């Protein structure tokens, strides 16, 4: 389904007010000149002209620490209960198209062989309103990984600012229509328009097919070491990334009461692969960096048919040592 509408900024405000009481709304918010996804209850709190948030919105689906179940000891036995992973319907308002497309990857990943209950229930209650990009910075590279600043992939509704205070709205899914129905008279029907002149210009930095091939064929190369000497294995890249899904499972609490939780983890950490015996299959950082790159462009393609990078540029912006995934891909393109 695809139908097209217009809404003024003022009406968007009213639309928000119509959605707000019945839903949890997560949106980008400015804190000290940086942007973070936060629950918001006032339209004014939403940043509509940001380039990118520091952390992705994946935590809506896959929180930093996610309770799998609680246990309580009673008479030598254990009682187990499962907290509901999500209460209200949740709308992410104003996420960028690259992020919206990351949810396509995430749902494929978590629901492929074994359906993850928490993720599945959250997905069912998740609505995505994406906002096409007016502006990009030089870390952005969505156009190099098969997307663009106005892509509707993964969105339920997509908004593009076409005039000073008018948004062009694409209703991408049934769920999007459901949202419109909250206050349909705020929208005005229109025809499909060409969005390209209203969006940011994001130059293509590499050819993804070529990159896949090059990265596929190179496992042993001194370039992996040379390119990753700066990396400290801090893991910010994975924690900021909308498509990094690795986790650890830990118990929190005592033998009497507690929870089993799933925490984010990262293949950048040296402990990630270390066996109890002390043997480490990826003992040095260059191997861990190689794993990250190969996973994004090669392994996940092999396993899911999708690359696991949406070109949001977060890892580039937030790396304390200026590691740059694009540069790495380009280096291997040059080989």
């Amino acid at each position, binding site marked *: 389904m695809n139908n097209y509408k217009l809404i003024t900024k003022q009406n968007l405000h009213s639309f928000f007010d119509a959605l707000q009481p019945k839903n949890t709304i997560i949106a980008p918010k400015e804190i000290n000149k940086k942007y973070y996804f936060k629950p918001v209850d006032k339209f004014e709190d939403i940043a509509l002209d940001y380039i990118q948030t520091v952390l992705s919105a994946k935590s809506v689906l896959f929180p*930093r620490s996610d309770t799998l179940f609680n246990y309580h000891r009673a008479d030598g036995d254990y009682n187990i209960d499962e907290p509901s992973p999500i209460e209200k319907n949740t709308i992410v308002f104003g996420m960028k198209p690259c992020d919206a497309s990351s949810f396509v990857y995430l749902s494929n990943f978590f629901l492929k062989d074994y359906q993850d209950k928490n993720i599945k229930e959250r997905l069912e209650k998740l609505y995505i309103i994406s906002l096409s990009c007016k502006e990009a910075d030089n*870390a952005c590279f969505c156009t190099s990984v098969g997307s663009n600043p106005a892509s509707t992939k993964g969105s339920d509704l997509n908004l593009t600012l076409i005039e000073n205070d008018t948004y062009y709205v694409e209703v991408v899914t049934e769920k999007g229509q459901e949202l419109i129905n909250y206050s349909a008279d705020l929208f005005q029907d229109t025809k499909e328009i060409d969005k390209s002149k209203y969006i940011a210009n994001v130059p293509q930095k590499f050819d993804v097919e070529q990159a896949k091939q090059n990265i596929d064929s190179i496992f042993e190369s001194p370039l992996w070491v040379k390119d990753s*000497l700066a990396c400290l294995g801090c893991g910010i890249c994975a*924690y*900021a990334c909308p498509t990094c899904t690795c986790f650890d499972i830990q118990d*929190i609490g005592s033998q009497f009461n507690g929870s089993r939780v799933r925490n984010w983890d*990262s293949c950048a950490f040296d402990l990630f692969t270390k066996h109890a015996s002390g043997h480490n299959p990826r003992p040095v950082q260059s191997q861990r960096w190689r794993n990250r790159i190969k996973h994004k462009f090669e392994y996940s393609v092999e396993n899911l048919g999708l690359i696991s990078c949406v070109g949001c540029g977060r890892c580039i912006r*937030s790396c*304390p040592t*200026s590691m740059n995934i694009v540069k790495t891909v380009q280096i291997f393109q040059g080989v």
Partner: protein
Amino acid sequence: MTELQNIAKKLFDDGSINLLIGYSNNENGGTSAIFIDNSADIDKLIYNENCHQNLMVYFQKPEVKKFGKLAFVVSLPGLKSVLEIASENQIKDGDAYFIAIDKDGNPSLLQDFHQIEDFITNNQTKPPMGLLKLMEKINNMTREERWQYWTDEFSKCIKCYACRSVCPLCYCTQCITDINIPQWISTESSPIGNLDWHIARAMHLAGRCIGCGECMKACPVDIPLALLTANLNKSIAIHFGDEPGMKADYKYPLSHYKLEDKENFIR
């Protein structure tokens, strides 16, 4: 060729070093670490006011160590971390070369810890204004307000532990957070789990932090971490009269007993 590049070239030419770690411009308009393993790349070496990463963190990185003899481009905080890790027996005089950048941006080659100590004494700078203001603001809070302030800050923490990875003094091969028998620091990111981590981190750096601010710059959620250690350092200086990163034979007050140490906390 700049003076900095000349010094670097000479080190390569006379075979003193196998790897030089300095700064270069990066593709995003900033600067980042560059690892130069032969003199052909020396023209990429730069130094300007945007070069702030404390490169001494790489001294402990196994893949960097493997190169052999190292040289570092360092400004004041980097040199302080050299002395601090020297006092902790992590580096010996002569283990590496240091191209020091003074407060006017001029490079000079420092050969030993004595020269580093003199350099530090002559090149003292004040912490940035913004930081001092924030510190003052926090110190003027009531105890409850201060608790609230830090609780709010820590609640943002995503426990990536980047603050640990980028710190030149966090070099333990096994960090306390990674020890699980017993589980000292709870693994989840939650109010209590985050507090666990921040108390441990701050206490393990109390009286050792040399104030480079790397933790704070790395933190993706902008927690002003360096203020915690700076304040702890202050208390230690008041009670024990010592400051880290000034002398290679610094006796870390929390692990060294001195006859004149106060005993007023024993009640």
